[in-house]
C-alpha cells in the first residue's frame, strides 16, 4: 500500500533488487543463508552519552533501526531529539566529548562501531555518505568546490590525476549545476545556498554510495530550491538504487518523500511505521501531537496545536523510562515500568503502554 502511494518508491524498490549486481555491494551478500533480507543498515540498541559541564547527558538511549536497500527512511523529531547524533555516531564523527557506550551497527557486512577509524573512514564518503544542513558553512570556504570534490575522489577512487577534474565536473553535472566547468573553479561564497547544497550532494555522491544520509538537507533554503533539492536526491536515489535516510524536523517533508518514518523523542525512538500508516494511524501520543502541530493535508491553521512542554534535560539522573511521560496526557502507572517496543502489525512499531 505504501509502494502504491509513491511512484518514487516503486521504482526505488525495483532498482534496489538490482543492487547486489553492483560492484561495491558484494559485501552485503556474502552470507548465502539469508539472501536479500539482510537489511543494508542494521543498528541495535545504540547508546550515546555526552560529557557536559552539568553532567552526563544520555543523548541516545537504546535506539534500534534498520534500513533496506533502495528504501527511503525518514527520521523525524524536534531539535535535540538525538536524530543527528545517531548518524554522526554511526559514521564515527562524533565530537570529542561524546561516547558510544553500547550498541551494534552493521552496514552491509561491515561492523560500523567495532572497526578501526582507518577502516571506517574508508567506508565514509564511499559507501555511506552524509549531507548536512546549512550547505554554505558545510563547505570549506577557502577551497574551490571542484577541488573539494576531487579530495573525495582522490581518497576513495583510483582516478588518475589527469582525469580528476573531468570526473569532478561530471559529478557537478549530475547534480544539475548550470555550467559545471565554470562552477568547478568557484568558491562556496560565490555560489547560492541551493548551489552549495548541490555541491554537497555531488561530493556525497561522487563515489555512488549505497546509503545517503541527508540531515535536514533543505533547511535554510527557499521553498522552490527545497523542492528542487528533494527531487534531485529522489532522482539519484532511484537511478542508483541508493537507500536514503532523510533526517528532518518536518513531518510533512518526510511524509512526501519517505517509505517509512521513524519518530524520535529525547534520545528514544518512539514510533516507526510506513509513512501512510503513520499519518493515518499515529499510535504514540507524541507522534499524534506532532501530526496535530504539522500543517499537513486538509488541516486548517486554526486546528494546529503545539506539543506541550519541552524535551526533558537529558543530564537528569531521574529521567523516567518513557521520556515523554512528563509531557503526556495519556500517562498510566505502567509508564513508570520498562519501555517496550511493540509490533502492532503492518510494520507499525510503537513504544507506548497506552497507544492512541
Amino acid at each position, binding site marked *: 500500500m505504501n509502494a502504491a502511494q509513491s511512484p518514487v518508491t516503486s521504482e526505488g524498490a525495483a532498482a534496489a533488487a538490482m543492487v547486489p549486481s553492483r560492484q561495491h555491494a558484494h559485501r552485503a551478500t556474502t552470507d548465502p543463508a539469508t539472501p536479500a533480507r539482510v537489511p543494508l543498515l542494521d543498528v541495535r540498541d545504540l547508546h550515546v552519552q555526552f560529557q557536559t559541564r552539568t553532567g552526563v547527558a544520555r543523548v541516545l538511549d537504546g535506539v534500534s533501526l534498520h534500513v533496506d536497500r533502495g528504501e527511503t527512511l525518514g527520521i523525524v523529531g524536534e531539535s535535540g531529539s538525538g536524530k543527528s547524533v545517531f548518524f*554522526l555516531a554511526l*559514521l564515527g*564523527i562524533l*565530537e*570529542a566529548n561524546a561516547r558510544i557506550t553500547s550498541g551494534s551497527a552493521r552496514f552491509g557486512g561491515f561492523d560500523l562501531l567495532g572497526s578501526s*577509524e582507518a577502516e571506517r*573512514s*574508508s*567506508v*565514509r*564518503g*564511499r559507501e555511506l*555518505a*552524509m549531507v*548536512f544542513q*546549512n550547505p554554505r*558553512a*558545510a*563547505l*570549506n*570556504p*577557502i*577551497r574551490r568546490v571542484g577541488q573539494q570534490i576531487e*579530495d*573525495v575522489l582522490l*581518497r*576513495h577512487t583510483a582516478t588518475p590525476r589527469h582525469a580528476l577534474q573531468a570526473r569532478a565536473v561530471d559529478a557537478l553535472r549530475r547534480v544539475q549545476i548550470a555550467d559545471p566547468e565554470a562552477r568547478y573553479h568557484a*568558491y562556496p*561564497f560565490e555560489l547560492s545556498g541551493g548551489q552549495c547544497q548541490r555541491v*554537497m550532494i555531488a*561530493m*556525497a555522491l561522487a563515489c555512488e554510495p549505497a546509503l545517503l544520509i541527508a540531515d535536514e538537507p533543505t533547511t535554510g533554503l527557499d521553498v522552490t530550491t527545497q523542492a528542487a533539492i528533494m527531487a534531485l536526491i529522489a532522482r539519484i536515489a532511484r537511478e542508483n538504487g541508493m537507500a536514503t535516510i532523510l533526517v528532518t524536523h518536518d513531518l510533512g517533508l518526510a511524509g512526501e518523500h519517505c517509505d517509512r518514518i521513524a519518530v524520535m523523542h529525547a534520545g528514544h525512538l518512539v514510533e516507526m511505521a510506513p509513512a501512510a500508516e503513520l499519518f493515518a494511524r499515529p499510535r504514540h501520543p507524541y507522534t499524534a501531537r506532532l501530526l496535530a502541530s504539522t500543517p499537513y493535508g486538509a488541516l486548517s491553521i486554526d486546528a494546529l496545536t503545539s506539543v506541550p512542554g519541552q524535551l526533558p534535560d537529558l543530564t537528569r539522573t531521574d529521567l523516567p523510562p518513557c521520556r515523554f511521560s512528563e509531557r503526556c496526557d495519556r500517562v498510566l502507572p505502567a509508564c513508570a515500568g520498562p519501555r517496550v517496543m511493540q509490533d502492532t502489525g503492518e510494520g507499525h512499531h510503537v513504544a507506548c503502554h497506552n497507544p492512541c
Partner: protein
Amino acid sequence: MNAQRLAAVRAGAGFVLRRLAAALPNLLGVVVVTFLLTRALPGDPAAYFAGPAASREAIEEVRRALGLDQGIATQFGFYLRDLVQGDLGNSISTGRPVATELIERLPASLELTLIALLLATLIAVPLGVLAATRPGSVVDHLCRVIATVGVSLPTFFTGLLLAYVFYFLLGWAPPPTGRLDPAFSPPQTVTGFYLIDALFALDGELLAAVAGQIALPAITLALFVIAPISRMTRASMLGVLSSDFVRTARAVGLSRTRVLYVYALRNALLPVVTTLGMVFSFLLGSSILVEKVFAWPGVGSYALEALVASDYAPVQGFVLVLAALYVLLNLVIDLAYGVVDPRARFEG
C-alpha cells in the same frame, strides 16, 4: 586567461597604491605627535651639549645654533621642509645625518626582529595546533605555561637571564656584544642581513658565528611573542575544528592529516596572520631594550642612546621609521590575507 591575469595584477597594484596613499595621513600624524612629544621631554639639549662647565652665554649660543630659540611652529616648519627632502636632521651626539645612521642600523634591527618572529611562529603555531588537537593534554598545559611565563617576564629580564645562563654559566653562547665577534669581519653587504649575506658568501664559519650572536637576543624576543601566537592558533584551531566544513571533510572520509592540515589549519591561520601583524609591532617596541642588553647595533639602541642625550632628531627619525614599517607590514599582511583567503581578494 592572460587578460584576466593582467587585470588581476592591475587591480593588485591599484590596491597597493591606494593603501600606501591612505597611510600618508597616519604618517603625518606620527610626525606631528613625535615632534611635540620630543619637545615635551624633560632636559635641555642646549645645556646638555654645551657641557657641564658652560656659561649661560655659551648655552644660549648653542641653543641658537640648534635653532631651538625659534617658536615651536617655526621649528616644525623647518622640520617638515627637511623631511620632504628626505633629511631627518643631524644627530647632535655623533654629528652625522640621522637618515644615514638609521639606514646603516636598520638591517641589524630588522634581521633580529624577523628572525625572532620566524622563530616564534615556528614554535608557536605547531604548539597551538597540538594544544588544540589534544585539549587538556600535557602539550595543552605546556602551551598555557609558556604563554603565561613569556608574557609576564619583561624582555630585558629574560635577555639578562639568558645571557647569564648561556654565556656566563654554561659558556655555550658568545659574549653578548653585538652582531659579530670582532675576530670576524662582516660579510660583504648584499641584503644587510648578516645571516643571508654569510650564506651568499658560502662561509660556514662566519655563518655559525653570526648565528651564535643572534641566537640569544632572537630567543629573548621570540619568548615574548610565542604566547599571543600560540594562544591565537589554539583558539582559532579549536573554532575551526568544530566547524561544519571540518565535519563534512570527516564525513566524506578524508584522512586525519588531510582534515587537519588542508581543511582546518589553512582556515585557522587566517586570524593568526592578523595576530602576526600585531605581534610584529610588539617586537619592534620591545627590541629597543633587547638591543640595549645585547649591545645590538640596531635602530632601537640608537634611539635609546639619543633619548638619554635629549638628542631629538634620532628619536623622531626612529619613531617615523617604526611607523612606516608598521604601515608597510600591515600592507604585506593584507596582501598575504588575499593569498590565503579568496574572500579577501574580491572585497578590494
